[in-house]
């Protein structure tokens, strides 16, 4: 395995919040094009691990390398730029801006660079179209269903063509039908080469989308298994 094919490399990552040890020496590698699911009981450190990879938080010790970038060496601004260009994130509760319509929520990610509103909007439109919600482009989040909101969130995450898509329980707040649609979407994305890291409680989501499952318990990786995808 050479470094160019390795998108994420965690090495003995530890994270403590006061007395709580959220991550207790986690080492993990994710290769380009892989879809990895992280599973485990509530509070075992899944979200924490995701945050470390996204550069949303810094480990207490250990090293996080993403795309050959040692995150601990980046300052806050560099981290923000790193997230902007390399990472797409999807959350359980969507986190859309309530006072922007769908299309502007999507375009936002690209508009943080430069001042032109036009080109980002065009791409946002294409993405919404690909995700099948082009007709809802002018709706505000409050008027969208959960599934639609999550698709808007996925579109936003894809806006800057990230090398790595991180999803924290993307179907956790959705009913099973919407959940499945989002699952299919992620699967499709992976099949066209998108590297994916999905945190989930849902065995079905894991087995459907992921080529590898990492199981966490009490902040440690307890098991890793490869899946033959259907």
């Amino acid at each position: 395995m050479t470094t160019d094919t390795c998108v994420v490399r965690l090495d003995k990552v530890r994270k403590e919040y006061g007395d709580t040890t959220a991550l207790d020496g986690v080492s993990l590698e994710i290769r380009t094009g892989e879809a990895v699911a992280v599973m485990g009981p509530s509070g075992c450190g899944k979200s924490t691990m995701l945050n470390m990879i996204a550069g949303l938080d810094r480990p207490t010790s250990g090293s996080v390398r993403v795309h050959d970038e040692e995150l601990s060496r980046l300052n806050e601004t560099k981290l923000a730029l790193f997230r902007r260009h390399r990472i797409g994130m999807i959350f359980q509760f969507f986190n859309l801006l309530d006072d922007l319509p769908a299309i502007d929520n999507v375009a936002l990610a690209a508009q943080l660079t430069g001042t032109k509103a036009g080109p980002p909007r065009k791409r946002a439109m294409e993405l919404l179209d690909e995700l099948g919600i082009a007709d809802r482009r002018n709706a505000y989040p409050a008027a969208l269903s959960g599934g639609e909101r999550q698709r808007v969130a996925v579109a936003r995450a894809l806006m800057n063509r990230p090398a790595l898509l991180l999803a924290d329980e993307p179907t956790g707040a959705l009913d099973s039908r919407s959940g499945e649609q989002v699952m299919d979407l992620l699967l499709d994305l992976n099949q066209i080469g998108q590297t994916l890291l999905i945190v989930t409680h849902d065995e079905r989501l894991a087995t459907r989308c992921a080529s590898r499952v990492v199981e966490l318990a009490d902040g440690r990786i307890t098991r890793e298994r490869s899946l033959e995808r259907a």
Partner: protein
Amino acid sequence: MSAVWRASRAAVRRRRVQTFVIGLVVLLSTTTIVVALALLEASSAPFDRAFARQQGPHAIAVYDPAKVTDAQLTGQRTGVAAAAGPFGQVTLDLTEGGGPGPRGPLTVVGRADPGGSVDRLNLWQGRWPTAAGEIVLNQPDPGADPRGFPPDSGEVTLGGKRYTVVGRAHSLSQTADAWVSPEQMTALHPTSVQMLYRFTGDVSTKPAVHADLAAVTAGLPAGALIAAQPYLVVKEKVASDIGVYVPFLATFGMLGLIVAVVIVGNVVSGAVVSSFRHIGILKALGFTPRQVVAVHLVMVSVPALIGCVLGTVAGTLAAQPLLSDGFAGLGLDVGINVGVWIWVAGLVGVPTLVALSAFVPAVRAHRLSAAQAISAGSSPRTGHGTRIQRRLAGVRLSRPVTLGLGLPFARPGRTVFTVVAVLLGVTTVTFATGLADTLTRISTIEDRASGQIGVRPSDGRTRIAPEGQLPPTGPQATTTRTDTEVEQLLRGLPDVARVTSVFRLPVPTIGQTQPLTVNFVRGDYSSMGYQDELTAGRWMTRADETVVPSELMRERGLKIGDKLTLELGGRRTVLTVIGETMDGAPGPPGMFVDWRVLTELAPDRAVKPHEVYYQVQLKRGGDVAAYVAAVKAADPAIDAWDTSQLSDFAVTVIGFSSVLSLLLSTVAALGVFNTVVLNVRERRRDLGMLKSIGMTPRQVVTMVLTSMAVVGAAGGVLGIPLGIVAHRYIVPTAADAARIAIPHSVLEVWQAPTLALMALAGVVIALLGALVPARGAARLTIAEVLHNE
């Protein structure tokens, strides 16, 4: 109740910043309110207050003891609430050189004590006279600043007899110039007796007071009443002295009150609104609606109470010295202080205001269901705000800027409050700077006009005590120089640029019942700055022209173009009033007349040097102190002193305006600070998301600052015209109240660069308030925010 207490305590602990802001805002606002109220109170009726404290007489009546007995006088009680007297009264001449104080006839009254039910004197120094040869002089209490007052002990020569000054007392009503013991008065054979009356009836006008007097003197022998003076005469004089400043002070007071109230309301209600989510959770936990309201009232009351106690103390401490320095100098040395009702307003009014501001949204919370409250607590949604955000999304500006521009519209109510806070802050700063500028200009013009140095040769007995210094001591001598020689001496000293000689003389004028005060002027008077004081007409260019101070114009009903015929020693000359001026030469208002007219009217008159006042102006950068020293060295019998000082009351007004501007801009900035803290708290989730998609810390700061810059710019743009209008309207009104006109040039204080700076003031106030919370927002740990929401 213990659950309420525990929940409130927890809430306070979790919102340290907000609790601190509430406390600080309430503290500063209370300080402002106390200072403002003290100002309003003092400026509303300073005379009345001091008058009431002294139980001043509504009328001073002087009777002829030959026509009426003391028993008759005390027996007349119709319409009298309280009376003092009869006190024997004589008029004695203060011999020239007889001691400090004004020369001329003094009214001396025999009184057994300074108290009583009428005219309670403020015996601020020494004791009351008891023995023969002892006297108390009528002088206002100089307060903490005794400069310019005669030395403590002393003697005066009155009517050829020497008296020891055992004390100084002040009668606001000017019932006498000096007091002695009744026994001493008897020995002086009083020529008249004085009665001091307070009436039960109407005393609001002079005719009303005269009617009251008529009632009390009814039945007395004809000619018994020699003279009577209603208190309104003194009141009008005081009013014209302080009148010029009262509207300034009142405006500041009002501005201060409004800003403080608006901001307390904004901060407190904002605090409650921002905890709606918390309210929802409490309700979900099973708190009753009433308990929920109680939790929030307790939550804001604790810091508010601490703030308002400290604020009341701070306000009192800040206002007291300003008030006593400002008013004591005018003789209003009693009754001007921070009254009890102001403390009550601070200690009761402010908490009431806080409780009300908290109560309204708390009651709304009371009605909200738990679920509604939880969702109301997260970021707000209004049709208006979203539409504006949407339009901004297409604007060609960087996205953080356009997002920031849209933020204020998400919570229009809070934004309006914040704009008003900044607006009033900017209005105050604008008005205050304008006012300070105007006052400085007025005093610069006056300085220029009064020269920089005043010079008066000694008459051999009295030395001039220049303001701010004790009178010169040492051997007294008369100058051997003549008037012209003194002028030559002054012109010969280093650095001198201009010298004007002023000789004041009351001159009978045809058609005027009383002589007009004339200042005969010689030398460089036309180039000394008096011209800048012109408010109408033009400066005099010929000997038959005169320029008259507006006060004298109004008093004598003169107008430009009038001809005045002066008469001196049987000779007459006709002068044309050609200009009106704000202020004349130092001293009582007198018309400017060229010295040639004096020579023409009284060719034989030899003006003595000590009758002349010389004004000297130095070359730019000349050393005033050195010149003063040079005069004294050249002729020890000539007194010279620095006259270039701001008037005390102008200093007071500038002091007040600076204190209030500072307070108000700080409070306005805190209002902004609070708004941003609340917005950031509400928008934490959005901020976390924006950061997660790559918004840099700098972009976060840009976004938050932009949102407040909008508010600041709005406040600035609206506040500046308001400040200018206030200045344009209030300054002339103030001048008019003081019965003077001011030159138009002192109102022209606004120039484009100043205005641009002022416009920036709003933005700066807003940005200063926003900076700390904006940086806090930039440092939010995203993981934590997203984890918690």
